[in-house]
């Protein structure tokens, strides 16, 4: 019997199947469409993250599956001065590099937002440090910071400011500032280009109105440009802080965490302990210890900077 027959009282309509009901419902269809992406995220993001967290609670070594040891790894790290040095280094590295990247990036964005000759050329060239593979630029910096052949030392010696090469990567504090300099160089393009995009969304007439209202150029910057730029600054700097906090490649190529762990970041220490050191559980625990810092940065950005009354919808 065909399904298009007229419905009669003695033959109540059959309940449609689960799939039919799902396709007909708005939420069900949405769920179906999201399923592939959901599975993808589950396998490639949630699973590794979950595995990492789990490893942190075990005493797994390379070549031997571990057993659950609870918080032992964390207790061990709590008493480990090298771990705390890495935490200090990471915070130091992140704070100074991020502040400098923000200040220089904003300055560069303001310059590029003006009517310059060859504006597009400069905008393209500014991206170069970001486009170059990290390892490649790190190796270039390795030469720049070389203890004997450093170009900086050579120039300063030529001018006569110093009489022997600077030991950039051999001295703990020199090494810290050197890796920060390299990170700043690499990170500026991202900040500058993103802020430039933000600057271009600010209508020129607002600056003109402010000029007529009697604002000096500095007041136009602090009272009009900067407040209007805060939403994009919040997003850009959140990303910048996350990138910097989790940096690995630059340090690993330049110093491998040396001298005497002075430039070890949490990411490099985690790798050092887990892979060359073989202590997978301990390495995982160091990596997991980064999570609270990262969450704090994200929450600060979300609640402190991104939500502004004047941006929200009607009433």
């Amino acid at each position, binding site marked *: 019997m065909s399904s298009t027959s007229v419905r009669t009282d003695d033959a109540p309509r059959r309940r449609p199947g689960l799939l039919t009901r799902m396709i007909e419902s708005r939420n069900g269809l949405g769920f179906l469409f999201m399923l592939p992406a959901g599975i993808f995220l589950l396998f490639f993001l949630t699973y590794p993250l979950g595995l990492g967290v789990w490893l942190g609670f075990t005493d797994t070594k390379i070549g031997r599956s571990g057993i659950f040891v609870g918080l032992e790894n964390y207790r061990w790290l709590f008493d480990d001065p090298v771990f705390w040095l890495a935490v200090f280094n990471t915070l130091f590295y992140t704070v100074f590099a991020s502040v400098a990247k923000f200040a220089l990036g904003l300055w560069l964005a303001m310059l590029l937002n003006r009517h310059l000759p060859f504006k597009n050329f400069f905008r393209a060239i500014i991206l170069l440090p970001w486009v170059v593979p990290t390892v490649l630029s790190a190796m270039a910096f390795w030469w720049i910071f070389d203890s004997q052949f450093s170009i900086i030392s050579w120039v300063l010696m030529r001018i006569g400011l110093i009489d022997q090469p600077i030991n950039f990567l051999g001295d703990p504090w020199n090494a810290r500032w050197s890796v920060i300099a390299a990170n700043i160089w690499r990170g500026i393009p991202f900040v500058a280009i993103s802020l430039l995009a933000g600057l271009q969304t600010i*209508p020129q*007439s*607002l600056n*003109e*109105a*402010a*000029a*007529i*209202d*009697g*604002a000096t150029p500095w*007041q136009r910057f602090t*009272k*009009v440009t900067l*407040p*209007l730029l805060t939403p994009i600054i919040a997003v850009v700097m959140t990303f910048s802080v996350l990138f910097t906090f989790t940096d690995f490649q630059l340090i690993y190529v330049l110093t491998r965490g040396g001298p005497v762990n002075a430039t070890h970041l949490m990411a490099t220490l985690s790798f050092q302990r887990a892979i060359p050191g073989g202590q997978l559980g301990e390495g995982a625990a160091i990596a997991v210890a980064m999570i609270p810092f990262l969450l704090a940065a994200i929450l600060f950005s979300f609640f402190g900077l991104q939500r*502004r*009354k*004047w*941006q929200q*919808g*009607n*009433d």
Partner: protein
Amino acid sequence: MASVTIDDVRKSYGAVEVLHGVSIPIEEGEFVVLVGPSGCGKSTLLRMLAGLEHITSGRILIGDRVVNDLPPKDRDIAMVFQNYALYPHLTVAENMGFSLKLAGEKRPAIAEKVRPAAEILGLAHLLDRYPRMLSGGQRQRVAMGRAIVRDPQVFLFDEPLSNLDAKLRVSMRTEIKNLHQRLQTTTVYVTHDQIEAMTMADKIVVMHDGIVEQIGAPLDLYDRPANLFVAGFIGSPAMSMIPGTLAEDGAFAAADGTRLPVGDTGTARAGQPLVYGVRPEAMTPGGSIPLTVEVTEPTGSETYVVGRMGGTAITGVFRERITVSPGGTLPIGIDPAAVHLFDAASGQRLTR
């Protein structure tokens, strides 16, 4: 309040000159409208008056002070922008008081000046809102309020009504004119809409391709346009223009031989190539001139008739209800006293 003098002002971008020596006298308290098609230089001129564009040559005076090299904030002007240019991160009250705050005024003093301005504009209940919560008309009022609070020598308006819908535009037009009558502040208003110019201005400046075509009171411009450009630009529907020559008997002969009545011929000579201009309302039904009807557009109070006369497309407006069907002929008369004759070559008006 102050007078404004624009004296042989020129503007070049590189080798391209966009304003070719513009001179406009503006009296104290006058409402002057700069009108012209887009690209005629009217906005550039206003921005030069505001100090947002450099003046290539010539002088601009506000009062008796040459302001050529003064920055905008020292010119004692206020400007209303086409996109309103309200600061999105400030409330209505903060937007209106921004200039006072920059000038270092205390909070109570600012509130004291913002409140009356807000009341004039009917914004008193919106002072704590942010611009994005306001409608287009309200934003426009805030922009005007920001200008009023400053109590400047001169108000500048740069196409302030272009972003509003048609109905709001008409009511804001009245509101701005009302405001000017109350405050009596010298106002320079830029628009491309000749209706706005006609209805609001004490004095209209018609600009075209970087020159001033004519300066005058709205009805003077309407009744005695100096040239074909002004004749075609002012008035809606536009003046009908029929090419032809003056015949020996004193009538106007259109290109196809149709005879049209002429009153005063001014300096026009017989045989000279001319353009015959007639406003739509100078035509009356029931005459001897055949008008071939193409379209009739009844609006209720009037009927617009688009058709051909003397071989040219023309438009007439009649108080009567015209029922001629398309293709039919409507005999019309033309008031000879309302006829304009222009030299076809130079475009200059020849009748008195």
